[in-house]
């Protein structure tokens, strides 16, 4: 191995040498949506360069510095089945979290029954209230994390999702909250649209990135 390929071995950006057997880079960045006081951020297969179909068996959304316009906002998501109307798929889910306060007064690991669903069609909570504050005192509070979606195009199985997020929750003292949310869309229809929104007001700022994970070289 000589020349420019040899020169690029070991690099992680720009031009890199493909992995043995080809297939370097199994993650494909599909779309980035940047919030600017948006009511929702929508990823719709076939629209605006979004792919959300059988192209990838696994999709991952990355949440980067998601900030709400109001301090009671809950960050949430729902899906829409192919050919369906409305973000209202049936979900059964679990929600637990660990949290700890900046003043060291409160900490816990606990299941949160206000965040789960049993065959519900509501938006699935990924956080609890307190995500962002618009009063100018805690404008640095935000949410970061990820959401994995499995087999969205399957017409045989339910659609599993797994999320882990860390966010700030303001009380007398700011919390660090680490949420673990998982569940399934209880449908055998393919899901090709995902929407994110706050329970109140807008997504003030932040980015959501969609990636597809290849299952071949």
């Amino acid at each position, binding site marked *: 191995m000589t020349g*420019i*390929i040899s020169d*690029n071995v070991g*690099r*992680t*950006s*720009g*031009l*890199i*040498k*493909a*992995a*043995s*057997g*080809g*297939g*370097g*880079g*199994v*993650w*494909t*960045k599909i779309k980035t949506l940047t919030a600017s006081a948006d009511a929702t951020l929508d990823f719709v297969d076939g629209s605006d360069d979004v792919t959300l179909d059988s192209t990838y*068996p*696994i999709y991952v959304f990355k949440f980067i510095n998601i900030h709400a316009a109001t301090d009671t906002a809950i960050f949430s998501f729902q899906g829409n089945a192919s050919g369906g109307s409305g973000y209202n798929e049936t979900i*059964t*889910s*679990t*929600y*637990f979290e660990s949290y700890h306060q900046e003043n060291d007064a409160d900490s816990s*690991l*606990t*299941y949160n*029954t206000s965040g*789960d*669903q*049993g*065959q*519900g069609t509501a938006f699935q909570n990924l956080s609890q209230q307190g995500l962002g504050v618009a009063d100018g005192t805690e404008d640095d509070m935000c949410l970061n994390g990820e959401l994995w979606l*499995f*087999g969205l195009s*399957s017409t*045989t*199985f*339910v659609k*599993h*999702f*797994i999320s882990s997020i860390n966010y700030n929750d303001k009380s007398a003292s700011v919390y660090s909250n680490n949420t*673990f949310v*998982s*569940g*399934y869309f*209880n449908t*055998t229809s393919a899901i090709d649209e995902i929407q994110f929104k706050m329970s109140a007001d807008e997504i003030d700022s932040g980015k959501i*990135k969609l*990636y597809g*994970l*290849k*299952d*071949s*070289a």
Partner: protein
Amino acid sequence: MSGIIAQNTLDSSGLIKAQAGGGAWNFIKKLTASASSDLSFVDGTSDVVLDSTYKEYIFTFNNIHSDRTFDVAYSLDFQFNMSIDSGSNYNVTKTTTIFRSQHSEAGGDASLAYQTDKDLAQSTAFQALGLYVGTESDNSSSGYLHLFNPSSDVFVKHFICTLNSVYSNNFNREYFIAGYGNTTSAVDAVQFKFTADEIDAGDICLYGLTT
């Protein structure tokens, strides 16, 4: 974007444009179940790499399904083990933890609990990743398992797994399993199977992380 980077965009061999995140994941192998007694990844077999090439490996599980006849008294577990002899024996000694959250479709039985009956303490048995998995036609399990530095001849072999599963009585369950193969021998094969009958459908992909 112009010049040589633009020219190499979408290439998959030779020089390629780095993916977001540096292209650290490398696809190695996909095994698709079809009434399979097990799915096994053995280094050096069928294009599987599971050696010192990568310091971290990730297995992804997509809609792992069993069609075993439902038996409320039987814990049909999706499970795994490791081998240090190229798959001749899957019996690495392990110490592990497992906990899970659960919630029923009926809206009850929400809880977070440690699963004392499914962890291992210096045991060579298979480690359960999902318990009492549902076997209805649309039931399945999906998730991922990280295996760290399996080729080390100095350290134990840590693993971390998250699996979401339809529990047999129409519950959602999320499992968190972690532990280590308590061996300083290189692990060169990993096997997945159910406690009974076959893996009817689903696929497992193996990736290696460039570090």
